[in-house]
């Protein structure tokens, strides 16, 4: 019994220490005078591997989710003779919820796990240590460009996701099931607001980007540098980041639309 209480206490202390480590890592990576000449090419390189390479999974998922939304929405709305509202239904679900959330989940699985594994391996193969011994701060050189790349690319990916999703809804609703073309777009335009819907979606996406990228980098940077350690850290990135996204989504939705 006492062992269990002690174990619980240790788990709590460890998680607090982990959060502290993660905080210190982020602060040290981000604070300091920017060296644009050096950091710009690094950022571009990471934007490519984190953002551009995630495009395919984002576009394909967006298209299918939009198509499913169109199909499901139509079968419900048509019962009430309200199939003209398919446009705003698809657009609002994507912009407010599905775009930011599903993008963040896919991003955690596609880019977050890659970040954790890459940094974990750099640690295991002593590349991080050797950077330090060369008087190059690995936090500035490795962590910082990856963080900004994740932070900038996820909202863009979420917008692409929503746009493609709306097109998917249009394909199914208008082209296939015969909702009126003009009504689909004009009712959508009348009902979607810039501030309430689009901007809030972007804010959500920025929060998710911050959290997911941060978790992925922290898990990689502080992993146990063995093969088991790296595989655990990678799994933990996907699990922790996904749960954090879903939990935060509820909080943000309550604050924005509640």
């Amino acid at each position, binding site marked *: 019994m006492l062992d269990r209480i002690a174990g619980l206490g240790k788990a709590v202390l460890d998680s607090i220490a982990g959060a502290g480590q993660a905080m210190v890592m982020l602060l040290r990576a981000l604070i300091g005078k920017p060296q644009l000449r050096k950091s710009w090419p690094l950022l571009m390189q990471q934007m490519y591997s984190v953002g551009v390479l995630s495009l395919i999974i984002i576009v394909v998922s967006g298209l299918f989710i939009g198509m499913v939304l169109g199909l499901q929405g139509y079968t419900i709305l048509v019962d009430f003779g309200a199939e003209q509202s398919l446009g705003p239904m698809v657009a609002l679900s994507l912009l407010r919820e599905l775009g930011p959330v599903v993008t963040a989940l896919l991003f955690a699985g596609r880019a977050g796990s890659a970040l954790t594994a890459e940094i974990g391996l750099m640690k295991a193969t002593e590349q991080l240590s*050797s950077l330090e011994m060369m008087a190059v701060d690995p936090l500035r050189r490795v962590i910082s460009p990856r963080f900004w790349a994740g932070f900038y690319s996820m909202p863009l990916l979420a917008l692409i996701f929503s746009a493609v999703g709306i097109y998917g809804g249009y394909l199914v609703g208008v082209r296939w099931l015969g909702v009126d073309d003009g009504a689909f777009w004009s009712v959508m335009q009348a009902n979607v607001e810039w501030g309430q819907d689009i901007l809030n979606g972007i804010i959500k996406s920025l929060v998710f980007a911050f959290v997911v990228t941060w978790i992925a980098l922290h898990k990689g940077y502080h992993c146990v540098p063995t093969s088991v350690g790296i595989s655990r850290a990678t799994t933990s990135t996907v699990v922790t980041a996904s749960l954090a996204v879903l939990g935060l989504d509820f909080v943000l939705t309550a604050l924005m639309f509640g």
Partner: protein
Amino acid sequence: MTSAQMDDLIVIENLDFAHSYGAHQVYKGLSLRIPRGKITAIMGPSGIGKTTLLRLIGGQLKPQRGTIEFAGYNIPELSRSHLYEQRKRMSMLFQSGALFTDMSVYDNIAFPLREHSKLSEEIIETIVLMKLEAVGLRGARHLMPAELSGGMARRAALARAIALDPELIMYDEPFAGQDPISMGVIVKLIKSLNNSLGLTSVVVTHDVAEVLTIADKVVIIADKKVVAEGSPEELKNSDDPLIHQFLSGEADGPVPFHYRAPSLAEEILGAQQGESHAG
């Protein structure tokens, strides 16, 4: 400062160190001097924390007690920026080579130059080619680290380690896992670089035969502190049983073959007794 002290690049006094994650004490009261311009071999049984010692000198770990002076600076007390200044004067060859896997050999060696100097690309190219020539890999400059053999990777890493012309170079197990030919190449390189560049070299190893041929000073670490030091001849002629065991590679002796455990008889009989109780 006396002349003896001036000849030592690194002076370690009374060092205590234990990893933060375990109660296991690595060093207790370790004192050590590394003479300037010489090759010092640090030897000891594996698991004794030889790599830890290099990390302490490099300031990657902080000791609980004691001083580590590098060229007069006490490394554990330096601020981050001062530590980075001093690190530009030292370099370390990691066991795995630790080449950056996303860059070619050329870019790996150019990396410290691009980070720390404002030299033009033409001059950097000249320096990189010179360093590659010194390790015999000028023809391999366009290869990626994954395309190199273990020995070549270590030589490429060595070229990177000397790119900024450091004063101190620390070798972490440079001979581990090398075939006899590349081992011979690395032994020769350590010696020739030390002499031609005026480096101070610290070689951490347990390959006794190789290192004794080139070392000017040998330090044996065991039981959390320095147990013997001197020139290779002095140690070879020593009649200390521990030194003898280590240099001749006997399996058992003052350093026991068995990890700490109760005797086999006790353990087996104890288990049998336990089983008979359970039965």
